[in-house]
C-alpha cells in the first residue's frame, strides 16, 4: 500500500497533544519529563479543562514547564509549589490547580509545604517526579537517593549511617486524612504510560470534585545524572528503584 493512502486524519492513531506547543524542550534526550508533559496535556484536553487549568511550575529541571504546555502557569519559589497552589485554588475554586514537582523540590526543601498542604486536604493535584537525584544542578544526592547509589555528592554511594535512608514521602503522605489519592506509577513502557494517564486523570477529577489532595508519584529516570543511556536507565530503574518505590496505589478513596 502507498504511504500516502495511510497518512490521513481518519487513520491517525497517535500524535503529539495539541496543548503541547512546538517549542524545543530543553530536557536531555530520553528524559521522563517529556512523557509526563505529554500525558498531562492529553488529560487536560480529554477533560476539556484547557481554559480552567492552572499549573504551578517548580524549581528543578521542570522549571521551564510553562514554555511547553499552552495553559496558565505560575512559577513557585523552590519547594513552595503546594503553598502557591493552595492560594490559587482557594481564590479561584472553579479552576483545576496542579503542581508539577521533582524530588529535590517536593521531598527536600518543600517537605513542610507538601505535608501541610496535604494535611489540610487542599483540593489540588500534585504530580511528583521521583528520579532519586538532583537532575538540574548536576546529579547531587537527593533525600530519595537509594542506599549505596552513587551521585556527585556521594561518590562512594549513599551511606545510610551518615546520609540517612531514602525518603519514602508518598508513604508518609498516604497516612494523612486530607489525601484522597496517593499512587505510584512510571512511564517506561507504553502500558505504564497509559496507567499513569489514568491516574493523572483521576487526580485532576478529584481536584475538580473537591475530594482532597491527590498525589501521583511518577518513578522516573535521570539518564544524564545516572550516567546511562535512556534504555539502560529504564532497566536500572526497574531493577533498583521499583523494590524501594513499588508501583501501585497506596490510597485511593
Amino acid at each position, binding site marked *: *500500500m502507498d504511504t500516502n493512502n495511510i497518512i490521513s486524519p481518519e487513520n491517525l492513531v497517535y500524535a503529539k497533544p495539541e496543548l503541547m506547543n512546538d517549542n524545543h524542550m530543553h*530536557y536531555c534526550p530520553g528524559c521522563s519529563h*517529556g512523557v509526563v508533559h505529554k500525558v498531562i496535556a492529553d488529560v487536560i484536553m480529554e477533560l476539556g479543562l484547557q481554559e480552567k487549568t492552572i499549573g504551578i511550575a517548580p524549581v528543578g529541571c521542570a522549571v521551564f514547564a510553562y514554555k511547553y504546555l499552552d495553559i496558565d502557569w505560575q512559577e513557585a519559589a523552590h519547594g513552595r509549589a503546594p503553598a502557591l497552589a493552595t492560594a490559587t485554588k482557594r481564590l479561584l475554586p472553579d479552576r483545576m490547580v496542579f503542581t508539577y514537582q521533582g524530588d529535590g523540590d517536593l521531598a527536600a526543601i518543600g517537605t513542610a509545604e507538601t505535608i501541610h498542604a496535604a494535611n489540610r486536604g487542599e483540593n489540588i493535584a500534585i504530580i511528583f517526579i521521583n528520579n532519586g537525584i538532583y537532575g538540574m544542578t548536576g546529579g547531587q544526592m537527593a533525600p530519595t537517593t537509594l542506599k549505596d547509589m552513587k551521585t556527585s555528592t556521594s561518590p562512594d554511594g549513599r551511606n545510610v549511617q551518615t546520609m540517612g535512608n531514602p525518603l519514602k514521602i508518598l508513604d508518609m503522605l498516604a497516612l494523612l486524612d486530607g489525601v484522597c489519592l496517593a499512587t505510584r506509577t512510571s512511564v517506561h513502557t507504553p502500558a505504564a504510560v497509559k496507567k499513569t494517564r489514568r491516574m493523572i486523570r483521576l487526580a485532576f477529577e478529584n481536584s475538580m470534585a473537591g475530594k482532597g489532595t491527590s498525589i501521583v508519584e511518577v518513578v522516573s529516570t535521570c539518564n544524564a545524572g545516572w550516567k546511562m543511556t535512556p534504555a539502560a536507565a529504564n532497566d536500572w530503574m526497574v531493577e533498583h528503584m521499583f523494590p524501594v518505590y513499588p508501583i501501585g496505589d497506596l490510597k485511593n478513596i
Partner: protein
Amino acid sequence: MAKVKGYVEVNTARCKGCNLCVVACPTDVLELQPREVNDRGYHYVYMKNPDECIGCANCGYVCPDGCLTVYRKKA
C-alpha cells in the same frame, strides 16, 4: 484476518535520538540514522523496515519529545 498497515511520521527536527522508541517497537521497524544528523546534531529516528509497521503506537507513547505521529489502516 485483515492485515494492518502502519506508518510512523517523524518530526526529525524535534527528535533527540534517545532510542526509546526503537526499544519499544515490537516489530523492529525503527532505527536511528547511522550517519545523518539533524540541526542539533542528533541522530534522528527513521523507519528501517516500513513494511513491518502495525501502527501500534508504542513508539509514540514512550517518545519524550512528541516527535512521532502514528497512522494505521487495514490493508
